């Protein structure tokens, strides 16, 4: 199933490249192509910023895919290819930004919000528990019962 799906994606990509007027030199190496696609899924196209490098038809995306392919042919690891791209385009190309001081808030933000929510939750519950059930006198209770009974009789 996954195999079939990826081959469909593969074909779709090939036709897309043909549309972009790019030569398809590496169709004979499906291993590289698959590796390239998998890597490019997690990389952002700089021209169409909501598209991945794998899915974009932008000219630059095609060039960068070519570059990734060539580097993989040259035996570079995925990590080296990613480093090659971030050296040129910055962390911006990564859909999954690295964990470093400037991105601490980004990565830890959700946990921080959860913690703030937890604190508010805790204090709300504690306050509610401390809320005493209102005490009313026996006389008042009887008066209330009488009034309610009268209401019911009317209906």
């Amino acid at each position, binding site marked *: 199933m996954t195999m079939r799906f990826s081959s469909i994606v593969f074909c779709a990509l090939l036709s897309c490249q043909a549309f972009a007027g790019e030569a398809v030199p590496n169709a004979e190496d499906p291993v590289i192509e698959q590796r390239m696609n998998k890597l490019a899924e997690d990389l952002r196209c700089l021209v169409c910023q909501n598209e991945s490098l794998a899915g974009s038809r932008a*000219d*630059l995306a095609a*060039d*960068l895919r070519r570059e990734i392919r060539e580097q993989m042919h040259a035996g570079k690891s995925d990590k080296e290819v990613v480093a090659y791209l971030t050296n*040129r*385009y*910055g962390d911006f190309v990564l859909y999954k930004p690295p964990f470093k001081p400037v991105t601490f808030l980004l990565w830890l933000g959700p946990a921080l919000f959860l913690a703030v929510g937890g604190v508010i939750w805790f204090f709300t519950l504690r306050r509610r528990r401390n809320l005493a059930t209102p005490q009313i006198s026996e006389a008042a209770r009887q008066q209330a019962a009488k009034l309610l009974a009268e209401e019911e009789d009317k209906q």
Partner: protein
Amino acid sequence: MKRFIPFIVFAVLATFFYVGLSRNPREVPSPFIGKPAPAFAQPQLFEPAKTFSPKDMQGQVWLFNVWASWCVSCRDEHPYLVELAKAKRLPIVGLNYKDKPEEAKAWLAQLGNPYSLAVVDPEGRVGIDYGVYGVPETYLIDRAGVIRYKQTGPVTPQVWQEKFEPLLKELGV
């Protein structure tokens, strides 16, 4: 105190949106600022037998402008580049990005040539090495060959005043 909470939440959100939405998402911070301009040796547009390397410009402050005849914003930018070239303050080297030499030459003949020298990058490889993603792009490179500023999109008089002038003053040009 309690009734101010919605207002405080609103103020915080409004601040975040105000700052976040006033940013230009097209502007990708360049990792090249303060780094040496990547080396290359590419044929020149008018003399393909000769090559050009950034190290040929060592000792000079210069502009490296990436342009193409198919690029619409380059047409916008061009008159101002011509004006800058006339002022002869610093040399402008053009990188003709993914273009056909004939078309590039025709374009320069028609609109004027601000470049003291133009190099070709038919496959966009130099462009990738410089992190080009939207032509026109302009790099300010100092005497030591270090990139001091990168402008993505046209160099306009306003951009020139705000971004380039302070750096040029600092570099004593």
